C-alpha cells in the first residue's frame, strides 16, 4: 500500500457577506501519497487554485477558511498561526505559480531571490546559500548559471523564468511540490522540457507533487492519480489509466470526449452544453445536473460519493448501489 503523506479533510473555503457564507471550495477531501503525482483537473473557476492556496496558507484577502482541516505528519493546518505557515512554506510544501512574472520580484536579481528563500529556512552562511542557489540553477538546467544569478527576471525568457521558479520552489528540499498550471503559459516544446525536468527532480529529491492543470494531456503525461473538480466539489477520483479508459462521471466523460483526438478525424467535436455555474448561484443537488445528458429526478438531491469496484470514487446518482 502507498503511504499517506497529506490529508485534506472536508475543506471548505469561501467568502462571506453579512454573515452569509458562499463556499468556493465546498467540503472536499482527498489524500496525497508519498512519492506520487496527484493531478487536479477541472474547468476555469472550479476552485483548483483556491484549493492549492489553502494548502500554502496563501488565500487571498476576503477569502476565508470556513471549515475542515489539512493534516501533514502531526501538523493541523487549521490551527496554524502566521509563523507556523512561514516554517512550513518552502520547507515542507512549496509552490510554483502559473505566471512566473507575477511571483518573481522584478526589482531583485534572480540569485538574491533564491538565497532569501534558503536563508529563511536554514541556518547557513550567505556564501553557502549562494553556492546552493548556483547548484539549484544548474539542477534545473539554466545555461550560464553564474551570470543568471545576477540577472533580473525580465532578462530571461518565459521558459527560463519557469525554471527559476522551480529552482526557488525546490531550494529547501520540500516534501511536497504544488504546481499550479506550471506550463500553461509556455509553448509545447518548452512545456515538454519543463515536465521532463519535474519528473527527473521528483525522483532525485523524493518528492510528492500536486499538479493543477486544465490540460488532460499534461495529466496523462505526469500523474499517477487524478481528482476531477466541478464547481467547487470533487466529482471523481481515480487512477490515471482508469480515468482515461473508464471515466465514470458524465462530466468527466464529457470533458474527455470534447478533446480533439489527434489520431481520429471527426467532423464535429462533442461538447458539453451550457456553462459552469457561478459560486453563489449553484443549482440544488448535483451541480452538474443542468448540463448533464443523463439528468434524472433524483439529481435535485445531493448525490452520494460512491466507491466503485475499481476503487475510483464518483459523486453521482448513476453509481448508487
Amino acid at each position, binding site marked *: 500500500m502507498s503511504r499517506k503523506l497529506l490529508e485534506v479533510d472536508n475543506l471548505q473555503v469561501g467568502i462571506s457577506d453579512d454573515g452569509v457564507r458562499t463556499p468556493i471550495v465546498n467540503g472536499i477531501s482527498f489524500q496525497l501519497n508519498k512519492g506520487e503525482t496527484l493531478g487536479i483537473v477541472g*474547468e*476555469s473557476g472550479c476552485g483548483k487554485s483556491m484549493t492549492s492556496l489553502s494548502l500554502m496558507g496563501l488565500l487571498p484577502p476576503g477569502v476565508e477558511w470556513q471549515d475542515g482541516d489539512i493534516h501533514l505528519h502531526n501538523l493541523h493546518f487549521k490551527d496554524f498561526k502566521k509563523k507556523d505557515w512561514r516554517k512550513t512554506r518552502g520547507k515542507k510544501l512549496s509552490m510554483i505559480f502559473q505566471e512566473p512574472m507575477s511571483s518573481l520580484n522584478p526589482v531583485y536579481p534572480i540569485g538574491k531571490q533564491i538565497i532569501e528563500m534558503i536563508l529563511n529556512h536554514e541556518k547557513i552562511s550567505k556564501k553557502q546559500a549562494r553556492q546552493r542557489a548556483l547548484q539549484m540553477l544548474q539542477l534545473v538546467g539554466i*545555461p550560464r548559471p553564474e551570470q543568471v544569478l545576477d540577472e533580473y527576471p525580465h532578462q530571461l*525568457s*518565459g*521558459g*527560463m523564468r519557469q525554471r527559476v521558479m522551480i529552482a526557488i520552489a525546490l531550494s529547501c528540499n520540500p516534501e511536497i511540490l504544488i504546481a499550479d498550471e506550471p506550463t500553461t503559459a509556455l*509553448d*509545447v*516544446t*518548452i*512545456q*515538454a*522540457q519543463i515536465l*521532463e525536468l519535474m519528473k527527473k527532480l521528483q525522483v532525485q529529491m523524493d518528492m510528492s507533487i500536486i499538479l493543477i492543470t*486544465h*490540460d*488532460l*494531456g*499534461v495529466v*496523462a*503525461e505526469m*500523474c499517477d492519480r487524478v481528482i476531477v473538480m466541478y464547481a467547487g466539489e470533487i466529482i471523481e477520483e481515480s487512477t*490515471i*489509466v482508469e480515468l*482515461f479508459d473508464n471515466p465514470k462521471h458524465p462530466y468527466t466523460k*464529457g*470533458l474527455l470526449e*470534447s*478533446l*480533439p*483526438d*489527434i*489520431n481520429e*478525424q*471527426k*467532423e*464535429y*467535436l*462533442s*461538447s*458539453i*452544453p451550457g*456553462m*459552469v455555474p457561478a459560486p453563489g448561484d449553484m443549482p440544488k443537488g448535483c451541480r452538474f445536473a443542468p448540463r448533464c445528458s443523463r439528468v434524472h429526478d433524483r439529481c435535485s438531491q445531493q448525490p452520494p460519493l460512491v466507491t466503485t469496484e475499481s476503487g475510483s470514487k464518483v459523486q453521482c446518482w448513476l453509481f448508487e448501489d
Partner: protein
Amino acid sequence: MHKQEELLRVENIKKYFPIKGGVFGNKTVQYVKAVDGISFTVNQGETFGIVGESGCGKSTAGRTIMRMLEPTEGTVYFQGQDITKLANDDMRKLRKDIQIVFQDPFASLNPRMRVYKIIEEPLINFGVTDQAERHRRVLEVADQVGISQAQLKRLPHEFSGGQRQRIGIARALISKPKLIIADEPVSALDVSIQSQVLNLMKDLQKEFGLTYIFISHDLSVVKHFCDRIGVMYLGKMVEISAKDDLYDDPKHPYAKALLSALPKAHPLQEKERIMLTGDVPSPSNPPSGCTFHPRCPSCMDACKTVEPILQPIGQNHIVSCHLYTAEEAKSR
C-alpha cells in the same frame, strides 16, 4: 473533389517593427523582423492553419495580411486584386470581406457597449444606413451564433468566455465576409466550451462557404479544424502541407519536434520525444543561415551560413530545409 479556387495569395510579406534608440530615442537602431517573407495561398472554402511558438509572428502575419498593419514589403492578392496598393477608402470597403476574430474575448469587446451595439457597429462603419435593415441583420446573426434577443441588451461582462467569443464571431460575421482570420479564437476557453465554439465555426463555414485562416498554437485543435497548415518559425514559414501529410510525416526538424512535444493522448501511450535545447532566439537578431540551426538536432555546416528556401517535397507539401535540398537528396 470540386475545383479549388484561389481566394487569397500572400507573396513574400514582411513586417518589421522599428526599435527606437539613440540619444533622443528617435533613431531606429534595429528592427524586430516579426514577419520575414512569407508566401502562401488560401483556397475558397478551405481552412488554412498557422501554427508555431509564441512570438514567431502568427498574429502579426494575420494582421498584416488584412492591412490592420501595413506590410513593410510584399503583396497580398484577394480575389486576384492586389490589396496592398489599395487606397484607404477602397480598403475600407474591402474590409467587410475580410474580418478578424481575436484571441481574448474579454479584451476585444468594448465593456460599456451593449451587445446589440457591438454587433451592429461594423454595419454602421460599412455604411448600412437603413436602421430596419441593420436591426434585421443583428437579429439574424445573433440567432446564427446562439445569442438570444434578451442577451442582446446586456453588457459584455455579463457573459462567459465562450459566449463572449460568440459575440466576437457575430461581429465578424455580420458584414457577410468571405474570409475570417481567427487569431487563437478558442485558446482562452475551457475544453468543453472550446468544442462548442469550434463546432459553431464549422457550421457557419458550411452555411456561408466561409474561408478561414486559423491561427493557433494548439496542434490538436489545428489538426481537427484545418485543411492545410503552415508551420512558422521566427517570422518564416518552414513547412506548408495538407494536414494529414504534416501530421503523418512532418519533414522540417522543427515541425517534427513540435509534433513530438504534444502531450500524450493516453497515459499508456509510448512517446518518442525530440527535445529541443535552447530558447527561441530573438526576432531582432535572428541566427544566420537557417534561423532554426542553433536548436536543430540535424544541423549541418551549410545550415549555419546558407538560408534554405521553400521547395516542394511531394504533392501539396513544401519545406525549407537543407536536409531536402537537391544535393543532399542525391547523396542520400
